[in-house]
């Protein structure tokens, strides 16, 4: 997994590429989110457009992000969810936990409001 980050309209945007599968991936994401939350950020958007797949350990990373943000009254969204990632979210019912948006723009508008 590779990750780039940017803050747009007060939302921490994490753009992931490759595969999300726990281990070092988890540390990188957790660190980025902890830092944003410490600095007062409360909204996180994962752009998954360049992510080939996520496995169940990778789902754990997204869930931790959700819990950490929620505990502080924040929220987490997903943008550009591929059919393959949509499938694993649907099967695990995590599509009821994460709001998914077609693109970053739509997501930023919804999260900012």
């Amino acid at each position: 997994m590779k990750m780039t980050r940017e803050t747009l309209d007060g939302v921490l945007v994490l753009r992931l590429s490759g595969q999300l599968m726990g281990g070092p991936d988890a540390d990188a994401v957790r660190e980025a989110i902890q830092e944003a939350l410490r600095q007062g950020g409360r909204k996180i958007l994962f752009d998954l457009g360049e992510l080939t797949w996520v496995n169940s350990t990778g789902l754990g990373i997204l869930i931790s992000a959700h819990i950490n943000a929620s505990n502080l009254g924040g929220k987490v969204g997903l943008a550009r969810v591929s059919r393959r990632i949509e499938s694993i979210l649907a099967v695990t019912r995590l599509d009821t936990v994460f709001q998914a948006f077609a693109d970053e723009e739509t997501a930023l508008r919804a999260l900012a409001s």
Partner: protein
Amino acid sequence: MIPPDADTFLAGDPGRSVLLTIPSRMEMLAVVDGLVQAIVSQLNLDEDTAIAVATSVVEAGTNAIQHGHGHEEGRPVHFRFFLGDDALEVWVHDTGPGFNPDAVLAADPTGPEDIFKARGRGIFIMRSLMDAVEFELGTRAGTTVHLVKRLGPGNGSSAVAGT
């Protein structure tokens, strides 16, 4: 399934068997996925079937590396693919301690209490996406997960139809 040596290969239907062995490193799952993509594309499987198989094989490989081998990279994980006419079957074998699947099979990670847990979804995902998921334990050292995806019409023609 025992580790894939030439005998094992020949014991099945060798013209339809593909074997893969990887180190116990999580990033090798991307290599496994690459092979699965090539196999499902060779079989002309529809996208949903392809996704189901790839996702499940990655989950089985994740468990073998993580729970079976505790990320000791020198311990090989073996995959056998059987490209049948009616089904694509996959065996994923590790030489780890094994486990009792009964408790896992009873669990439902989508319930309101469990949905926010970071773990406990792998086997549920495989069972949701495949037509059959079996665990072979005890006959030889280690764990073998046997995954079956039946191929109906619309899921490509004969597995041996070729290019």
